């Protein structure tokens, strides 16, 4: 079999890769590269699952890897890319609350916090491999970074990507901390796909940022279009 230490080294590298993709997602303005970066992240996740499978040889991990590859690395990115074509948005320039640099710094701080917190919480769990702990920290951090993407970007479509990256974080965390029954994992993925489908469909209706049409709301009087108020 393959050397455990080597696999662990690979896992470490992959984890760092994931963080790098997340950082890229936070800071990039180009939507198309955002989607492909998400796709890359998912692929990394799949690789991680495979690597873990090598370590633990649990069939569930393999199944997860397969499902994730199909759904997250192929179906969803493709779908989002199609939608993007439809609404003809290429860039998401505006940021809210956090500028890209701040978010990067902030996410580093967050990772530290998550590290402390998790080490505090997981002390009750019988000692696990240091690597697994590291994976859990990365998972939660990925979630929080995804959340930061959601709240700092204005376009709904970017928010969807943020959400997806959060979900990746959950998956990562789940893989490292424990192993859930496959049926659950599978259902979650199904659920996620529906969610993303719906959200992206809804965003089609919104060709501009959410803020913009707040200002224009009064134009959309439902009936009879009364006069506009100054």
């Amino acid at each position: 079999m393959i050397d455990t230490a080597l696999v662990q080294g690979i896992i470490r590298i992959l984890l760092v890769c994931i963080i790098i993709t997340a950082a890229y997602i936070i800071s990039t303005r180009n939507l198309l590269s955002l989607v492909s970066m998400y796709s890359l992240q998912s692929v990394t996740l799949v690789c991680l699952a495979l690597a873990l499978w090598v370590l633990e040889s649990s069939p569930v991990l393999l199944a997860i890897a397969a499902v994730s590859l199909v759904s997250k690395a192929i179906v969803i990115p493709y779908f989002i890319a199609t939608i993007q074509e439809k609404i003809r948005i290429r860039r998401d320039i505006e940021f809210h609350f956090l500028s890209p640099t701040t978010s990067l710094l902030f996410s580093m701080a967050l990772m530290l916090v998550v590290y402390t917190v998790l080490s505090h919480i997981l002390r009750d769990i019988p000692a696990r491999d240091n690597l697994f702990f590291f994976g859990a920290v990365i998972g939660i951090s990925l979630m929080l970074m995804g959340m930061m993407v959601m709240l700092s970007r204005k376009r709904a479509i970017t928010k969807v990507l943020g959400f997806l990256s959060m979900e990746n974080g959950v998956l990562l965390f789940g893989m490292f901390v424990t192993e859930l029954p496959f049926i659950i994992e599978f259902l979650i993925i199904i659920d996620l796909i529906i969610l993303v489908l719906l959200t992206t469909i809804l965003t089609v209706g919104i060709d501009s940022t959410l803020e913009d049409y707040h200002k224009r709301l009064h134009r959309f009087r439902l009936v009879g279009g009364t006069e506009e108020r100054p």
Partner: protein
Amino acid sequence: MYTETFLIAAALYAAGFSIPLIWWSRDLRAVRTLSLSCTILASLLLGLVSVAVLVSGNVITFMIYRPLAEISFGFSIDRLSGFFLLVIAAVSAPVALYASEYYEHLEGGSRRNLLAGCTNLFILAMVLVVASADMLGFFFFWELMAAASFLLVMYEYDNPGTRKAGLFYFIMTQLSTMFVLFGIIALSFRAGSFRFSGVAVPADPVVLAAFLSLFLGFSIKAGIIPFHKWLPYAHPASPTPVSALMSGLMLKIAVYGLVRFLLDVFAPDLWWGILILLAGVISAVLGVIYALKEHDIKGMLAYSSIENIGIIFMGIGLFVIFSAESLPLLAGISLLAALFHSLNHALFKSLLFLTAGSVVHATHTRDIEHMGGLACHMPVTSALFFTGSVAIAALPPLNGFASELLLFIAIFTSITVVDPLLKVLFLVCLALFALTSALAAACFVKAFGSVFLALPRSPESAGAKEVPRMMLAGPVLLALACIVLGLGAYQLFVLAGISVPLPDMMLVGLLLAVMAALTWTALYFTASRAERISETWGCGVHLQEPSAEYTGHGFSEPLDIIFSSIYRTRIRNERVFFDQKNSIFREGTAEIRLMKVFEEYLYLPAARFSLASATRIARFQNGCLDTYLLYVFITVIAVMVFLGWS
């Protein structure tokens, strides 16, 4: 036997409530009459039960509904409850009689059915509050009473004044509910259940908090200053029978609550009594001072209610003080005074409200400056209002005097026994009490004088006609009750087996009658009987004009100036000049407005402050998804930090 009678009475009220609901869309007089007949019948039965309880001293206890271990609707009618049931019965029957005619003259079509129904619900709720055996039932029906009365106040909802009244009433009611609920819950820990059972430790902070909050709650409901503001808004806005019920009965329910809790639950401290006494005195004096200045006839009566509630609270305060000083005899007299005054006030205030309603009905205005001269047009109403005025001005030999006299006697007697410091307090209270009752007399001279005497001051007033017979029948009963209770006060107490140091008012009345008869006889035989009708002598005035008469405002002007520090007027004076040096006057406006001190310095700032802070807090919801997600994010991090830290 009594239980059944009571239940039948309650069922009749309930029937009176539901009958108009069943035919809610039929604008028929018969429906309302049927509903109000139920009220009258039920009140009669209730009166019987309460008299039986009062005379026999038996306690009627029964349980009607106990769905859960913690929830039970048990009733227990002891003498205290019986007394207040009597008050309710005595007032609601005449008021219903009056209403059966009055409601027909209101606008609103079939909405009047609802009015009649809710009137019944309101009375029923009050009856059940008084009869409830535990705090839970008390609070349940207390809330029901609040809800029913609120609906009644809002009857003329399309009137802008009603809107303000409803708002004030609703918010103050909720405030009262809040305090009462807090008190009840706090007590239920100490007592272990919702029963009215003794909590002996007055020093216990929970008991103390319970007392204070109950006191506040009842004060708000009773209209003690500074929580009185809803009264002068709600009473004028609501239909007359409703004002009569609210002023005559609902305020007494708050009094009942206070007395019930003080008697059965608390072992009061001395300073509790002082607190109640001071609250009473302040309300009494300020109430009557504001009443003097009011020229809305129902508003004036509302302020006068505040005054009378103040007097009742004084009695209760004295009761607590004397109990704490272990002077049981004086305590008994004070409590008796408070209770007796509750009954009396219920009677004469509903009498006054009903007759005032008749006047408003006849003249279509509530402003006493637009009335006048009604004594000739509405002789019976004027006689009834006069009876009420004499009673409320605490003049012998009517009932208002009898109860105030009891209170006077209690204070007079106590001065020889209590501590020096208490003596000084009592003297101050005594002086203010005397002032109150003298001002009340002035107030009702003004009211009766401006409404009924001299020349009519508006065409409506000149064309007023006496109201229909049913609208006289109710007040007549009340007036008779006032007279009987006044003259027979001593005998009634003897009959109830209570010895009080009250003068025999029957004798005084007799003496008055004899003196009047003798004088008349003497005049009949000695004096000239020639009479002539002529114009009023006006010092050479050509023709007497209504506009030249003394108005209500003019009447109270001297007192106005004397109490100017309390009234707080605001003077606005704007002048425009022709030149720049402000020496040639061109035009100007000036206004002297009476400030509503409590409203402007207490209620409105509080409302404004809470609205401003609410607007600030509502900015939290700014409609932007990013912000919302930020909240989530911050919370997540906070929770995580909390988890790592704990």
